[in-house]
């Protein structure tokens, strides 16, 4: 067993404040996490412009209050915490209804369960899985989830009742979720 040599008593003490990270480190960190923060804010309830503003504020708060933060091993959860705080503060200032605590808790639960939930890597996986769906299922999904067509109307367009459309959408979502999880390596291949 090797012993750790002790520093001499008169040796200069290590600086408690590490040097600020270089701009290239900051840029890398922002580039890596900005999409994640933006998508998290969107799911929490921020609109596109609000999420854009708060995304910048989140990184500013992150860097200005914690100069050594670029060296943190896992900044994602910390960034989401700041973003969430800023969204609530922004809603309070604007006197707009904040997202409910239940909704935020459910979003955080999603983030904890799926580490790719807000990452760029999810998009190509989803794209690939969409291509594996039947035309009918993909069309139903796009109408309902992208164009906001009500479920009953989706059913009418496909010659289904409301329950039929509900069932089709649920099955499609399950297929898609399982496929994406396999693509991202979150579950073993069947």
């Amino acid at each position, binding site marked *: 067993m090797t012993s750790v040599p002790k520093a001499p008593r008169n040796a200069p003490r290590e600086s408690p404040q590490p040097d600020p990270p270089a701009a290239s480190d900051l*840029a890398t960190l922002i580039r890596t996490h900005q999409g994640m923060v933006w998508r998290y804010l969107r799911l929490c309830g921020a609109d596109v412009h609000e999420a854009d503003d708060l995304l910048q504020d989140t990184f500013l708060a992150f*860097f200005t209050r914690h100069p050594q933060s670029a060296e943190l091993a896992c900044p994602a959860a910390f960034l989401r915490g700041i973003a969430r705080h800023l969204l609530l*503060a922004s809603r309070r200032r604007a006197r707009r209804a904040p997202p409910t605590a239940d909704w935020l808790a459910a979003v955080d*639960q999603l983030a904890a369960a799926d580490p790719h939930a807000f990452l760029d890597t999810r*998009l190509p996986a989803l794209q690939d899985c969409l291509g594996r769906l039947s035309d009918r299922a993909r069309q139903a999904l796009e109408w309902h*989830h992208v164009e906001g067509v009500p479920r009953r109307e989706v059913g009418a367009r496909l010659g289904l009742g409301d329950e039929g459309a509900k069932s089709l959408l649920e099955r499609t979502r399950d297929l898609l979720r399982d496929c994406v999880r396999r693509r991202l390596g979150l579950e073993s291949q069947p």
Partner: protein
Amino acid sequence: MKPTSSDVHDRHLSLTLEELAGRVNAPDRVDAILRRLAAAPATHRGSPGRVRWLAAAAMLLGVGITVAVALSRPHAPARESAFAAAPGELSPGETAPIAVMQEPAPKPKPPTNQTPDHPKGTTPADLAAVRSAEKMLEQEQKLMARLREGKLPGVELLRFETLAEWKYSKGLEGMPAPVKGLDGQKVAMLGFMLPIDEVKDIRHFLLVQSLWSCCYGTPPDVNGIVRVELPRDRPTDYSFEPLLITGTLRVGATVEDGYVVDIYQLHADSIVVLQ
């Protein structure tokens, strides 16, 4: 209605599909953030942790002193006169209009967020929250004084501490008899509004002791929340300020989709926004 995990997953899928369809794209803000960071005051970037701790301690000390002064001067004439400006709202049995009444606003404070009492980096929202909490404590003392003087017969100031002093368990087992006995009583409560569905024409909302505890710290348990019900024909709008609500308290579990969503309901007769 409480959102389910499925609601969040559906919304998540919608947002991801929108992005995939090219309707919206995650922005690239590297340059903008670096520019803003370079322009940020150097004091923020290099502020040592020790200074921040001292600043936080100073703020806590300030809040403590404010609370201590409020507790030691329950009959302060200035506060009394401010409250007396809105008489009548607390008369038992009176069906006062539910329209939100504004207390006379105190002298405006300078809109600054960098006072010597607060740490650097404190945002206006942080300060507003501190001031709201202080204001609520002050109003609580004021109301207690009026109750002690017998000016509001038949009305009891009900504190969240009283409602939440027991550990909630299914079936309301363990609820103390005095709390059960509040069912049907006329009470006055101070707290903050937490909207459920809407922000205008609100007919019901949750009353919580502190917006901090609901939104930044540990959320209150179900016995730390009161659902306020307004008459259908007299809705109100969202307010960020502390509220004084009088009405009839009901004690009993409300179950939705198999979940207990609240156990206290306050059927409001009047709401006063404490500004």
